């Protein structure tokens, strides 16, 4: 009988702690490999491409006025005097054990994980990034909670009231949200709330630990602006997914059991709807922590996006490398967490 067959097949049930642990370990190894590849590519782009086009990469980082001594000094500092593989090896070694840099009067130790010294201010890139992280994380966390609530809520309502006026209004608003750039909605909201209505202070970051109310007050506009952009996407995604899910047989079954609509929608339909949204959410959140460049620029937040921007403006290679790796790390980690959550939400998914 079929039943017996499948009973035997169940011996290796998914979700056993050891299996999950093994899976996480294997994925973490993948994360490391992924970051290695990303770092190699980034390294390649910034060091090899200038060579291929016949320019000395060091000239990208010194100004036009560079004296030969300045050029050589920077060459040594960036390790450009060594072969590429050796430079890369030193970079990796720095991440693991740290690195020492001469300052002229002595040696500056860049503790592990050392992503090099910023060309701009001679500070370890790691320190700059970790001090910028809370700002970006605050921005991303607040905005993502808002857009999840807003986006999923309106999307679900829209799906339930398909073709109603409310649905149409919501979807047009969502389209506007997707289409309007941050520097439009952002500046408009600053103008409205900070200057015209005087409801909020001019945006600038206040640490959460220092002044929670100020923190929220200063971030509320960037949150809303960013959430508006993403909520729009999520509303559309939720609506489409929810409509699909509502057509599923198991929703009809739930109704056939006599469950009230709030349970049919709120529990049965919502849980299935959330699965694809979770996937997108993980990617978005990971990407956002890598830097919301426009939002940070418009709202004067000195987060990772801003660090990336400054790095590019000032040809600060170690900073650019650092932000890239940092962003890559968060995206891969977000991916891993999403996959774990996915397995938790959908029992059919096996962590293998």
């Amino acid at each position, binding site marked *: 009988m079929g039943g017996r067959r499948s009973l035997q097949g169940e011996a290796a049930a998914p979700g056993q702690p050891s299996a999950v642990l093994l899976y996480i370990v294997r994925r973490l190894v993948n994360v490391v490999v992924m970051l290695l590849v990303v770092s190699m590519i980034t390294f390649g782009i910034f060091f090899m491409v200038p060579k291929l086009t016949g320019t000395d990469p060091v000239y990208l980082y010194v100004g036009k*006025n560079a004296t030969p001594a300045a050029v050589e000094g920077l060459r040594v500092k960036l390790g450009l005097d060594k072969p590429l593989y050796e430079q890369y090896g030193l970079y990796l070694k720095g991440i693991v054990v740290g690195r020492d840099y001469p300052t002229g009067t002595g040696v500056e130790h860049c503790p592990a994980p050392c992503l090099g010294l910023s060309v*701009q201010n001679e500070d370890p890139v790691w320190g700059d990034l970790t001090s910028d992280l809370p700002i970006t994380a605050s921005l991303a966390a607040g905005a993502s909670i808002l857009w999840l609530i807003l986006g999923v809520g309106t999307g679900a309502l829209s799906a339930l009231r398909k073709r109603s006026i409310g649905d149409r209004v919501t979807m047009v608003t969502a389209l506007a949200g997707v289409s309007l750039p941050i*520097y439009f909605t952002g500046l408009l909201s600053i*103008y409205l709330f900070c200057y015209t209505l*005087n409801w909020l202070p001019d945006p600038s970051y206040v640490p959460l630990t220092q002044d929670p109310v100020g923190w929220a007050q200063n971030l509320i506009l960037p949150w809303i602006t960013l959430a508006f952009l993403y909520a729009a996407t999520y509303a559309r995604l939720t609506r489409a997914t929810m409509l699909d899910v509502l057509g599923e047989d198991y929703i009809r079954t739930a109704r056939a059991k006599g469950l009230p609509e709030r349970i049919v929608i709120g529990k049965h339909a919502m849980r299935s709807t959330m699965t694809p949204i979770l996937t997108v959410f993980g990617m978005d959140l990971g990407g956002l922590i890598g830097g919301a460049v426009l939002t940070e620029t418009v709202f004067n937040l*000195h987060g990772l996006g801003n660090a990336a921007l400054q790095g590019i403006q000032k040809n600060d290679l170690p900073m650019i490398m650092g932000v890239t790796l940092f962003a890559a790390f968060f995206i891969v980690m977000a991916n891993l967490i999403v996959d774990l959550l996915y397995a938790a939400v959908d029992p059919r998914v096996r962590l293998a």
Partner: protein
Amino acid sequence: MIIRNRALAAVAVVGAVALTASACGGSKGTGSSSDAAGKSSFNAAVTSIVNPSAKKGGTLQFWANQDVDSLDPTRAYYAFAWDLQRLYARTLLTYPSQPGTAGLQLSPDLASAMPTISNGGKTYTFKLRTGLKFSDGAPLTSKDVKYGIERDFAQDVLPGGPVYLQQILDQGQKYPGPYKDTDPNKMGLKSVQTPDPQTIVFNLASPNSDFEYYLAMGASTPVEAAKDTGANYQKAPLATGPYMIQSYTPNQAIKFVRNPNWDPSTDPIRKALPDAIDVTITTNADDLDSRLLAGTADLDIGQVGVQTAAQAKILTNPQLKANTDDAPNGFIRYIAMDTKVAPFNNVHCRKAVEYAANPTDLQTARGGPTAGAIATNMLPPNILGHDSYDPYNLAAGKAQVDKAKQELALCGQPNGFSTTIAARNNKPKEVKTAEALQASLKAVGINLTIDQYDGAQSSSVIGAPSVVHKKGYGLMVFGWGADYPTASGFLSMLVDGRQILADGNNNLSEINDPQINSLIDKAAAETDPKAAAADYTQINHMVMDQALYVPVVYDQALNYRNPRLTNVVFLQALGMIDFAALGTSDGK
């Protein structure tokens, strides 16, 4: 090399912001005190001191949309970073806080008087004032001045700043800087002597009329050897001026407070009115403008001009306009004609271009009158030696087709000719300039092909004569700014025939005229800056007579100042408001 690394306006992102910005703010108006309104007017700070006052106290709210390149005076090159140095880093000589050309005349700062010049203009002897101290309380001696200058030599550790002193003081010694100095006291630079703690003597290899100007740069500020942390010094440099750095968060904020070890009796130049100065670095240039107009920010210390949205607002509002200055900042935009590329080897063909060009159209391409006045010759108004010489009547702002055709006939090209004009592809205004010239020259039969090349590579494209000849660039659009306000610093690189380099060349016309060359040498040997300026007036006239460059505009930037600011002076030497002179009228 002399191009000053001007703090450039923010990146493309911010540029995009500017386009869509509905002028934020302006309705708060808390800062627009009316008591100063009578004294303030458009461009008032250029010719006079606006709101003169001795009222002390308050905190200046400085804003910028870009961080300084370095707080270590040895390493900074941004113009506004140099202006900020006036708050905390004193030099032997400096520019007085005076409007107009008075502000171009150096005066003693750490030095008690102007130097004694002897040995045929080759030896400069300075005496220091008494009672000078660093912000840590240590006495400031001539050895510290020498050490500070020695640091300029350590380019491997401290790159980024100007290297004029290194070039002129090394004299074949190959001095590696104090960090690799074998002298136990790190006093190994031979051309500079410190016979006693109050005296410092510079021995030059040949006379140089610009030498004093080199000493007025922050890169010659004294540094206490025991407190030098090399590459890390920029995080917390010691102060010699009235203010010291309390805290510095890169890309975010700099806070200046009073330096308790600064003695006003040793400093005749700085009034040190405010109690503190806060520099806030924002990422949003339009927001910065909104704060300025709303009165919550005092000054955009980038001084490169307000964004488009705020500019429109200011120019249509007389009250706002009264608090702005729009003065030449020392940059000139021009189109070079290469005398080695036919038919520009013939002076008449070059003159034909001067006449056929429409100066008004070229000015429009740069952004109109607000962005710069029509240039009639190659020396901007804030350079000593400037005059209004205008052999091609460019000031009239019109193309002169008849004269251009006469010159074409004399050149043997009565029906015109074809050539290529090069423009940097990352400088939209330069591309527009090329397009404007293309349109004007068509009227006399000169057909231009515009070649947009990789702007980041300009030193190896238009800076390499062999490339220029190969590509047939008869015309090249470019710009130039001076590090210090002398004509030699400005013009010699553009016209000295002995400075034609294979790579990184700036003499784009490739002119090698013995008469010009000898005048350049004569000017360099002058010990009196005024005499040198007169020589350059002559050089400038020759350059124009030979039609080597089509001057386009002298750059200007429309900058807004908070009406509460006192002692506002536009310092011609830096092309911007003097930060060190400012105070607040409300004491806040």
